[in-house]
C-alpha cells in the first residue's frame, strides 16, 4: 500500500466516523441483558454485591461519575471545587432533579445519604473516616470538610460507593426492614418496574430524567440465567443482547466474539481494576520465607496463563497496584518466568518438600483451570502442592481463618491505592474473620507508615513519591504472588451503541446507550 493510499483510506475512515457521529443516538428500543447471580436486593444503600450494583446503577446515582482515566465527571453534582489546603470540598448539585416518585432531590438528601451509608455500607464507612463534617448551606450546595487532606476523597462519589438515598422514604424508619426496599426509588435514568424472582428484572425509562434527551432506551430486561453454558446459548439464539463481563466462561468468549454482529470490549473496568493474586500465608510454613515466595513468582508462567486461561485478556500484574489506578509505577523488581531461578531460590530457602495446601477460587471453570495450571508450574520446580476443593462459603471461611498456604483471589482497587490497595498490606488490617483485609498476615512497619502517610499527603506529587516507594518495597518482599490485572470482556450486539462510557462500565447504567435500528 502506497503512502498516498494509506492517507486516503485514513481520510475515508475519518469521514465515515464523522458520518456515524452525525447520525446521533436514536430513541427507543428494549435491551435484554444477563445478570448473574440474581441480586439479593436492588436497594443499593443496603446491599453492595456485584449484581446489585450492575442493575441498581441504573436506578441510583452518585454525585460524580468517573472517566476511563478516573477523572471526575458531573453526576448529580454539576460542579465542584476543592480548597487550596485540600480540606474543603464544595459541590453544586444539578437543579431540578426529582426522585422517581416525583419528590425533589436536594442537599438534604445528600446529608441524609451520608448518615445512612455510614451505618450500612462498609466501604463508604471506610472512605468517610477523614470526614469531619458535611453541611448544606442551601438546597443545591453541599460542603464536605475533612480533618486533614485526603487525596482519594474526590474518588469516592461513584454510584456504587456513595449512592444517593431518598430521605423522604427512609428517614425515621428501620432502614433494613423498610418495605420500600422492594421498590427502589432513585434519581437515575431508569425506574424499577417489575421483578419476577428467578426469571427477570424489568426497568423502564425515567421520563423526567434530569439529563435532557436521556436515556434513549425504553426498557431493560435483566434475565436471570444460572447456567454459564445456557447464558452463552441465550446470546447465540438472540434472546439477550448484552453479556456483561464475567457472564460466560472465558473459553466461550472467542467463539461468541466470532458471531455475526457481535462486539467485545474489555473497557469499563478501570475504576475497579480487579487485581488477582495468590494469598501466601506469611505466618507459617515455607510461604513464611521471603526467598520461597520469590521462588513462586519465578516459577509461575503468568504469560501462558493469560494467553491460555484468559484468552489473552488482561495484563501481567507487576506489583500491588494495577496499571489503571493512580500512582502506579512499573519501576519495580521484575519476576519473569524462570524455573531455573525458582529452583535455586527454593534451595536457598531451605524448602524440604513440605506439602502446601492450595485453594482455587470456586468461581467456575476458568478459575479451576487456572489453579491446575499453577499447580503444574509449581510441581515442575519441585513444590509439593495439594489442591483443596471448596464451595464459595467454604472458601470464605478457610481464607478468613487463615487455614491455607496458597489461595487464589482477586480484589477491586477502586482507583486509588488508599482505597483498594493498602488494605491488603498494612498490619492494622490483619483481623481474623474477614476475607477482604490483610489475609496473608504481612506486617512491615515501613509499609504501614508509607500507606498511612500516602493517604493524607498533600499535594498529589507527594503521594506519588510515597506510593512509588511502597510499591518497590512490596514487590521485593512478595507478601502475595501477583498474577494478572483481570479484564472481564463485555459482549454485546454491535447495534447496542455507547454502552460503556465511564470507568465503572456497565455498573454506571445504560443512560447513554442507544440502539441502532
Amino acid at each position, binding site marked *: 500500500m502506497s503512502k498516498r493510499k494509506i492517507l486516503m483510506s485514513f481520510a475515508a475512515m475519518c469521514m465515515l466516523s464523522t458520518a456515524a457521529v452525525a447520525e446521533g443516538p436514536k430513541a427507543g428500543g428494549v435491551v435484554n441483558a444477563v445478570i448473574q447471580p*440474581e441480586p439479593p436486593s436492588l436497594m443499593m444503600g443496603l446491599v453492595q454485591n456485584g449484581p446489585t450494583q450492575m442493575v441498581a446503577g441504573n436506578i441510583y446515582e452518585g454525585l460524580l461519575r468517573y472517566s476511563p482515566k478516573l477523572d471526575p465527571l458531573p453526576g448529580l453534582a454539576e460542579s465542584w471545587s476543592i480548597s487550596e489546603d485540600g480540606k474543603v470540598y464544595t459541590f453544586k448539585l444539578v437543579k431540578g432533579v426529582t426522585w422517581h416518585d416525583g419528590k425533589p432531590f436536594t442537599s438534604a438528601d445528600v446529608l441524609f445519604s451520608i448518615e445512612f451509608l455510614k451505618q450500612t455500607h462498609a466501604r463508604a464507612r471506610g472512605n468517610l473516616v477523614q470526614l469531619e463534617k458535611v453541611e448544606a448551606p442551601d438546597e443545591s450546595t453541599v460542603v464536605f470538610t475533612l480533618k486533614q487532606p485526603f487525596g482519594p476523597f474526590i474518588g469516592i462519589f461513584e454510584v456504587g460507593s456513595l449512592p444517593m438515598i431518598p430521605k423522604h422514604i427512609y428517614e425515621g424508619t428501620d432502614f*433494613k426492614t423498610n418495605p420500600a426496599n422492594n421498590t427502589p426509588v432513585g434519581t437515575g435514568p431508569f425506574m424499577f418496574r417489575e421483578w419476577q424472582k428467578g*426469571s427477570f428484572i424489568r426497568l423502564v425509562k425515567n421520563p423526567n430524567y434530569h439529563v435532557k434527551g436521556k436515556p434513549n432506551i425504553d426498557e431493560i430486561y435483566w434475565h436471570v*440465567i444460572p447456567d454459564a453454558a445456557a447464558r452463552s446459548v441465550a446470546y447465540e*439464539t438472540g434472546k439477550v443482547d448484552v453479556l456483561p463481563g464475567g457472564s460466560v466462561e472465558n473459553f466461550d468468549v472467542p467463539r461468541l466474539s466470532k458471531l455475526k454482529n457481535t462486539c467485545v470490549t474489555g473497557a469499563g473496568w478501570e475504576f475497579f481494576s480487579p487485581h488477582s493474586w495468590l494469598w501466601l500465608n506469611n505466618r507459617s510454613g515455607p510461604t513464611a520465607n521471603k526467598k520461597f515466595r520469590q521462588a513462586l513468582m519465578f516459577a509461575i508462567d503468568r504469560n501462558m496463563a493469560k494467553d491460555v486461561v484468559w484468552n489473552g485478556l488482561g495484563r501481567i500484574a507487576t506489583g500491588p497496584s494495577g496499571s489503571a489506578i493512580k500512582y502506579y509505577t512499573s519501576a519495580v523488581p521484575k519476576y519473569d518466568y524462570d524455573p531455573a531461578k525458582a529452583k535455586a531460590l527454593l534451595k536457598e530457602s531451605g524448602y524440604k518438600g513440605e506439602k502446601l495446601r492450595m485453594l482455587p477460587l470456586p468461581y467456575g471453570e476458568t478459575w479451576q483451570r487456572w489453579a491446575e495450571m499453577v499447580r503444574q508450574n509449581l510441581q515442575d520446580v519441585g513444590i509439593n502442592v495439594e489442591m483443596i476443593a471448596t464451595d464459595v*462459603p467454604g472458601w470464605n471461611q478457610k481464607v478468613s481463618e487463615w487455614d491455607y498456604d496458597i489461595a487464589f483471589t482477586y480484589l477491586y482497587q477502586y482507583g486509588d491505592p488508599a482505597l483498594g490497595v493498602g488494605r491488603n498490606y498494612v498490619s492494622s488490617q490483619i483481623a481474623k474473620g474477614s476475607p477482604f483485609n490483610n489475609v496473608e498476615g504481612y506486617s512491615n512497619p515501613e509499609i504501614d507508615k508509607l500507606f498511612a502517610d500516602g493517604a493524607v499527603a498533600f499535594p498529589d506529587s507527594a503521594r506519588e513519591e510515597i506510593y512509588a516507594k511502597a510499591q518497590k518495597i512490596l514487590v521485593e518482599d512478595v507478601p502475595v504472588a501477583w498474577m494478572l490485572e483481570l479484564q472481564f470482556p463485555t459482549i454485546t450486539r454491535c447495534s447496542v451503541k455507547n454502552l460503556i462510557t465511564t470507568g465503572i462500565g456497565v455498573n454506571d447504567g445504560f443512560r447513554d446507550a442507544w440502539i441502532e435500528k
Partner: protein
Amino acid sequence: MISFIAQRIAKAIVVLLALVVMNFFLIRMAPGDPAVVMAGEAGAGDQLFIAQLREKFGLDQPLPVQLFLYVKGIVSLDLGFSFRQQMPVSKLILDRLPATLLLTGTAFAISLALGILFGALAARFAGTWADTAITVAALIFYATPLFWVALMAILLFSVTMDWLPSFGYETVGAGYTGLAHVLDVAAHLILPATTIGLFFMATYARMTRASMLEVSRLDFVKTARAKGLSDTVIQRRHVLRNALLPVVTLAGLQAGTLVGGAVLTETVFAWPGIGRLMYEALLQRDYNLLLGVFVVCSAMVLAFNLITDLVYRSVDPRIEFAA
C-alpha cells in the same frame, strides 16, 4: 379410611419435626456462614459489617437457642426469614412452587404414560427387534447425565433448528395473555419436561416390561388364555393391571423426589423453580431458606407416600388399609 388418613398424617408430622432437627444440624455442619458469604459478594466488609449481619440473622446466638427459635417457628407454620433475599421463606417458596410443580408434574405424566406404554409394548413383543430397540433406548436415557441431555436438546432444538426457546418460563416482555400465554409457557416447558421425563420413563419402561413378563407366566393368565380370551384383552385386563403394582410403588417414591429433584434441569433451563432456589440457598448458606425448601420437599414426599397407598388400594382391592 378416614382414621387411616388421620393416623398417617399424625405420624407424618412427627417424622417432619425429626427431619427439621436433623437438617438443622446437618446444614450448620457445612463450613462458612451467610454473613461472610454476603460480605464476600459485596467485595468488602469490615468486622462491624459481618458482626451486624450475624446479629441480624441471629447467628450470634448459641446453636440450641437458634434451633429452639426455628422449631418454634415451624410449629406455628412460620418458615422464617431468608437472610439473603430479605423476604419470608414461605413467600419465596410459594412463588416458585407452581413452576416446579408444572415442570415436574408434566415430566411425571410424560414419563409414566410413555414408560408404561413402551414397557407394555416391549413385553408384548419380547425378544423381537422392537423389544431390543425400546430396551436399548431406555438404557441410554437412564445412563446419560440429565444436564448433558439438556444441553444437547438445547443445542439441537434451540440453537440449530430454532424451534423451541432455550431458557425461561415464558417469553419475557411479550405480554401474552389467555391462550397465547398458555402456548408460550407450553413451548418453554417442552424441553425441560422431556429431559426429566425421558430419564424417569426409562425406569418405568424397564419395570413395566419385567413385571409384565413375570405376571404373564402366572396361572390365572393361562386360565384366561384357556378360556379363549383375545390376546389384547389378556394383556390389558389381566397382565398389565397386575403388573402395575410395582410401577405404582416406584412412581410413588419418585413423585416425592420430583419436587426437589429438578435442580440440574431447572438450572440449565433457567426455570424459576424450587430446585434452583434450594441450590442457591445452599451456595449462600441461606439456612432458613434451605431448611424451608427441605421441609416443603419432605412434606411432599410424605404426602405422596400417602397418596400412593390410596392408589394401591384402587389398583388392587385386595390391599386393605392399616396404619
